[in-house]
């Protein structure tokens, strides 16, 4: 029993690490752009397909594929900023619809390029780390966990210690005041979109060999990310990370013991309860959103 | 006879800041009562507590001896206490007529089933009549089909009061009704308020325009730093040493 708990906990840590990468990106985009990026799950999907193309089809090293995934999806983010969100700055609902349109285009392109069927990706490593008699974790999952910790720490350093990060946080808090301070909103928007999209892309790229890659995989990812950023409080990066961990643990444990549908219901119900008790999320403030 | 409106030990704290501190005063029926004080004295906060916009930290607001503090704004309104807002808080996207029609919500309560079947003709006509009355009273009849957001500033203030008037209030709470009005408009508005008083409506107003306050009010309550300072008729208040000190002190502070 104890082994099972420990094993499930380990699985939860893995889930938490890629969920938090996606959710932090989504929060960053919402904070700076003020727009709900419905296409965020498809950015994750795009990252996974980069791995399919570069690693599985072109037989390049996995590490290169992941870096390409980060850069490619980051550039998709820049494209979205320039083509959609910048012209629709004063129209949040418009930004929502535009991101839905973009989602459909990405899905269609993936279907056309790779087909609707699940992709086979050769495992990066078959190695399994044995931590106890019945406790083990595939090395590939360890990569994801390590990558998430490194990336989120780097992001934290970037946001708290650099001038860019300061500008980013300032414009997320109050865009007008930030502009008066001489911060270029266009500049910070670009950076936020690149980082936000890139995080989703790298999460998709890292997990691609471990999950089923298909054109509609973004759906469950965006649902999870929405739950997490709501529970954490929209606009709070720390909240998003904490909520990711909490959600991953609850969901993984309930899935292990009661099944997936009950786990989904539990996750959604917990989120509703959080919203009923605190209608702006655990770490959110009332004035944004 | 019971006291019309009585404020007892009313207190509002925002975090550590005490905005209104154990305030006591009462308003007589059928009077125009002014609430004055230097900037930051807590007048608007007091207003917000009486109208149900804020829930007071402690203390009571008694209307005919019924405690209405902590009720929601629409519940306070349904007891006859209707407020206006500072600035031009209007339904800017709707026409002037529609704005005032929303003011008739309480006397002519809409009913969705009657509206679908068409059994609410009398109510609709009644509401429209009342709305026209309100527009006429405030001299807005010619502007009925204009978009409220397109009106001049003075007209917007008048429209805010017309919405309030349309609901047949016992007590009108007017938050700085004269700001943004030119002297001529102010004079007309003062006349209208006197006519309202003659019709039996009680008025409590917060205002910075001292000339208007002194010329209009029957009684004046003066606050300073959240506390009660003085009360009396316009003459008493004008010559009250504490009031002069508060205003001059404020002026010195500003300078």
């Amino acid at each position, binding site marked *: 029993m104890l082994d099972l708990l420990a094993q499930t906990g380990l699985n939860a840590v893995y889930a938490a690490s890629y969920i938090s990468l996606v959710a932090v990106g989504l929060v960053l985009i919402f904070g700076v752009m003020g727009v*709900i990026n419905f296409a965020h799950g498809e950015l994750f999907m795009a990252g996974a397909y980069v791995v399919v193309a570069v690693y599985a089809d072109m037989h390049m090293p996995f590490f290169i594929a992941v870096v390409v995934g980060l850069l490619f999806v980051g550039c998709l983010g820049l494209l979205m900023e320039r*083509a*959609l969100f910048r*012209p*629709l700055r004063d129209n949040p609902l*418009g930004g*929502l*619809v*535009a991101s*839905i*349109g*973009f989602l*459909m*285009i990405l899905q*269609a392109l993936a*279907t*056309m390029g790779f087909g609707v069927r699940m992709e086979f990706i050769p495992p990066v490593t078959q190695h399994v780390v044995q931590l106890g008699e019945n406790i083990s974790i595939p090395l590939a999952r360890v990569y994801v966990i390590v990558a998430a910790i490194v990336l989120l720490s780097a992001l934290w350093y970037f946001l708290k210690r650099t001038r860019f990060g300061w500008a980013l946080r300032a414009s997320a808090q109050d865009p007008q005041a930030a502009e008066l301070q001489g911060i270029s909103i266009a500049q910070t928007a670009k950076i936020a979109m690149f980082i936000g999209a890139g995080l989703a892309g790298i999460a998709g790229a890292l997990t691609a060999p471990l999950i089923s890659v298909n054109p509609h995989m973004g*759906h469950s990812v965006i*649902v999870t990310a*929405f*739950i997490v950023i*709501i529970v954490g409080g*929209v606009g709070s990066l720390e909240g998003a990370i904490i909520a990711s961990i909490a959600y991953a643990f609850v969901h993984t444990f309930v899935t292990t013991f009661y099944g997936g*549908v009950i786990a989904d*219901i539990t996750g*959604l*119900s917990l989120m*509703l309860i959080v*919203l009923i008790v605190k*209608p*702006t999320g655990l770490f959110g403030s009332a004035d944004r*959103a | 006879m019971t006291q019309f409106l009585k404020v007892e030990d009313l207190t509002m704290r925002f975090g550590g800041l005490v905005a209104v501190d154990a305030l006591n005063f009462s308003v007589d029926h059928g009077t125009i009562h002014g609430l004055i004080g230097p900037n930051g004295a807590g007048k608007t906060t007091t207003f917000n507590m009486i*109208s149900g*916009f804020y829930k007071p930290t402690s203390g009571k607001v008694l209307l005919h001896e019924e405690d209405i503090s902590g009720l929601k*704004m*629409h519940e306070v*309104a349904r007891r006859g206490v*209707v407020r206006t*807002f500072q600035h031009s*808080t209007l*339904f*800017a*996207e*709707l026409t002037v007529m*529609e704005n005032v*029609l*929303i003011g008739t*919500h*309480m006397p*002519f309560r*809409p009913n*969705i089933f009657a*509206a*679908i079947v068409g059994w*609410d003709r009398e*109510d609709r006509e009644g*509401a429209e009549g009342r709305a026209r009355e309100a527009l006429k009273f405030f001299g807005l009849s010619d502007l009925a089909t204009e978009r409220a957001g397109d009106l001049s500033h003075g007209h917007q203030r008048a429209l805010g009061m017309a*919405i*309030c008037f349309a*609901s047949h209030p016992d007590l009108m709470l007017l938050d700085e009704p004269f700001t943004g009005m030119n002297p001529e408009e102010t004079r007309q508005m003062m006349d209208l308020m006197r006519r309202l008083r003659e019709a039996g409506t009680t008025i409590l107003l917060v205002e910075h325009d001292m000339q208007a306050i002194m010329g209009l009010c029957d009684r004046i309550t003066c606050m300073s730093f959240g506390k009660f300072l003085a009360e009396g008729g316009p003459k008493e208040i004008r010559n009250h040493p504490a009031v002069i000190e508060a205003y001059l002190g404020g002026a010195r502070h500003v300078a």
Partner: protein
Amino acid sequence: MRKALIWIAFGAALIALPHGLSFSQQEILVFLTINILVVSSYRLLTLTGEWSLAHVVIMGVGAYASAMMTKNLGVYVPVAMLMGGIIAALIAVVLSFPLFRMKGFYFLIGSFAAGEIIRLLWKHFRDPFGGAKGIKGIDPMPDFSIGIYDFDFFEPVSYFYFAGFIVIVCLWILWRIERSPVGLTFHAVHWQDKLAEASGVNLRAYRTLAFAVASGFAGIGGALLAHYIGTINPGSFDLDYMVFVLTWAIVGGTGTFYGPILGCVVLTILNEVVLRELGFEQLRPLIYGAILIASILFLPNGLESIVQKFTKRSAKS
């Protein structure tokens, strides 16, 4: 007089319309008719300023309720449809307690979560909801005759007339509500909730009213769908469908009563008829997505703004 003639001509055109279409186009026409009701009821909710993502699931509540009532209790189909609407409205009232504590983005996602929970409950409980496979073999609308026309509900044309009649009645009611003092109060709640409240409007009650009425009509729409296709499952009312409703409303524009209807008709015809006829089967979602983006970039106030420009010009001349 001239107005009456236009309406008569419009009615005649609607009656004649299905006879010029292929069988599959007639089927699309039935779905379009039902979707017009769904998107119009959605607009009633948006009048109070809230955007929900639970609307399609609540439509599904009406569908499930009506299907189960006919199947398990033997209720006459039109009565079951009405009951489906009422049950959807009641569920909406229940949901309003947690949801109306939230606003804006939180309400959007909160409503999505509430809808997903309902959908997952359908999926999880095989008894009575049929699990992931849903309910099959739902009783069709029984055939009947009105003297000049025999309704045979295996024909889409007959169902189009039946559904069309119900939808027009529902639209008429929605129109009456919007043009009434109640509708004006919905607008007031949207534009300046504080001023409305100061005028004695119970904000919570009016938000709930709009939510319940909109949900009731969505439920009737769901029931119409269920008894037409004969089988429903949790996947029939998923987020993809909701996204379509949302985009119809926004692309059409929610400023007017006809805006969402226009969006629904234009986008459906483009997606289901034009793109299919042109042979773009594979590219359909791609082009649809591009159309969404283009319309929001170049027509930010919706398709209705074109109509408004046109009618204003003709009024001036």
